[in-house]
């Protein structure tokens, strides 16, 4: 899957904005949004928030967890913990990327937030590589991946599943084999 598609899924997440216009409720297929009252915060999907922002129709209030201190704590936790800690959002990486990209003027400490999130990502990715390696060397055939977020999972795809697929192939040999040549023998000579 392309990272853009992961981001596309992340765009469904809601974010608070402060509109500078008044408008009634809009009934979208994915759910109703609004009403919009100038100056009053309202939650809408990120895809819409970014478009309204581009049109200078709103100010984006970042997600609650987009706070430098909170993120630094998360980073420390992640460093200490052997397993993956729970992230504030399944799309934390793409949300930061999108919201800070579109509204760094609205969200305080944008650069520090970006750095902190990148650090968290790096710690988690190196943890992931180590655990993948350990997993492959074990005899395991199934792994639990709790708290891994959408973009992180996507980043080890197709590497991890493909490697496991090949290991299964290598293991299965000796049993039935799938290629045409192996069937050669069973094919009747009578056809000649």
């Amino acid at each position, binding site marked *: 899957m392309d990272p853009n598609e992961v981001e596309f899924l992340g765009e469904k997440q809601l974010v608070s904005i402060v509109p500078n216009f008044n408008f009634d409720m*809009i*009934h979208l297929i994915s759910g109703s949004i609004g009403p919009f009252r100038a100056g009053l915060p309202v939650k809408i999907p990120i895809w819409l928030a970014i478009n309204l922002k581009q049109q200078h129709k709103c100010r984006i209030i970042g997600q609650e967890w987009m706070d430098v201190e909170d993120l630094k704590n998360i980073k420390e936790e992640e460093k200490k913990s052997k397993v993956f800690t729970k992230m504030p959002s399944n799309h934390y990486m793409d949300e930061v990327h999108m919201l800070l990209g579109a509204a760094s003027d609205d969200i305080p400490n944008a650069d520090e937030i970006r750095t902190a999130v990148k650090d968290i990502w790096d710690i988690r990715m190196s943890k992931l590589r180590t655990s993948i390696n350990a997993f492959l060397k074990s005899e*395991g055939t199934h792994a*639990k991946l709790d708290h891994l977020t959408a973009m992180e999972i996507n980043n080890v795809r197709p590497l*991890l599943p493909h490697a496991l697929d090949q290991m*299964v192939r290598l293991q299965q040999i000796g049993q039935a084999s799938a290629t045409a040549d192996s069937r050669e023998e069973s*094919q009747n000579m009578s056809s000649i």
Partner: protein
Amino acid sequence: MEEVDEVVEENAEFLEESDEDGGVTAQSVLQDIENAWLNEKFAPEILPHQSDAVECMLQQISHMEDNMKSLGKGSMKSLIHQMEINRIRFIISSYLRCRLEKIEQYAMHILTEEAQRGREDGYLSSDELRFAKDYLSSIELLFRTLALQHMPNVLQKFEIETMTVKPNIHAHVFLRANKRITGIIVPGTVDEEVDFEEGSQHIVQYSAVADLVKNGDIQLI
């Protein structure tokens, strides 16, 4: 203007209301399609079609677009609706494209399996089935024209048995359990039995969870 607005949203609202009687909402149909899209993207084999949901959603979209024409171009409201429609259209196209790719790649296999299923529980929609048949016969024709007919008699056969390309159902997939599931057998050197907690994420061979993906207990991610 108000009236037109209402017309545009009539459908969405109508469906929303029907939810109270336990029916489906446009919102839930959309979620179903999105889930089907992701499952189709990640599952190695082709999954049962969802053409009812797709048709319903496309109808919804085309009504909305018709009604939007009277809304006035460039109005904020129509632009917002248009943006959402584009998102939905992308999901549907990507979903159907993904199915077409599988149909082409595994045409022979899929048609063989499909022949063993009843018309009611076929995995392909009738239009997909026609596409699959046309596609396969066009390949057969080309093979015949350029090669098979020039080969010695005994070798002219289009050998279904050897030539069928099959999906690798032992491919590994990422998944999330939609509910608690117990006793999943994970194949391996020693078959292992595992339980999935609700909301937990795993990587496992598709063959171990194929049925659970099809009945909605498991979402591929």
